[in-house]
């Protein structure tokens, strides 16, 4: 199950890329578990995801919480709390 990951703002800067294609193993079922799995991929990912309180996420362009299931997701974005307006 390939997922397009998107990163925005300082999360993008710390991860070092704005997007990447991933294929998590079957045991990864929630957004929170996916972030744990991503944090193990590189020091940059680990740094970006170190403080979960500072992260927000969207699954297929809808805001989602850490316990949200990722089954069927095509696009998942991780970013800081929004600051528009």
């Amino acid at each position: 199950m390939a997922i397009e990951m998107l990163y925005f703002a300082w999360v993008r800067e710390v991860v070092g890329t704005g997007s990447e294609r991933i294929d998590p193993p079957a045991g990864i079922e929630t957004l929170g578990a996916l972030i744990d799995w991503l944090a193990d991929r590189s020091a940059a990912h680990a740094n970006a995801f170190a403080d979960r309180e500072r992260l927000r996420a969207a699954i297929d362009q809808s805001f989602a919480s850490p316990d949200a299931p990722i089954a069927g997701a095509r696009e998942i974005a991780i970013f800081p709390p929004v600051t528009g307006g």
Partner: protein
Amino acid sequence: MIRVLVAAEPIDVAAELASVEVDGAGGIASFIGRVRADDGVSTLELEHYPGMTEAALRRVAEGARDRWGLAAVTIVHRVGAILPGERIVFVATAAVHRRAALDACAYCIDRLKTDAPFWKREVTPEGARWVEARAGDAARAADWG
């Protein structure tokens, strides 16, 4: 009539206001958010999530139209590099009577601050920094239920 625009170009408020001055609109409220010229910020950079942003703004506008029976709603938000004195966001709401227009305008600006995926980065003489979200914004958005 709903209009949502995410654009790198400056916001033309006269044209945008004219677009909500439809037949049934007796009252039109609007809000402009802009980069203050007294803040030490030389440039404000706005990043966003293409696709999700437009959908989020449209949901805010539709929510306001349905709740207050608006004749028209327009939301325009800039992205990219914005200079001091320039406009970041523009909201206009048109209704038969003034109270609906005024309340709906406040609703739209409160909600888009928490619902639309934009991120601000301030460039100052001392360097650049990402703007932190304000707890008050989430509270204000929640007040609308």
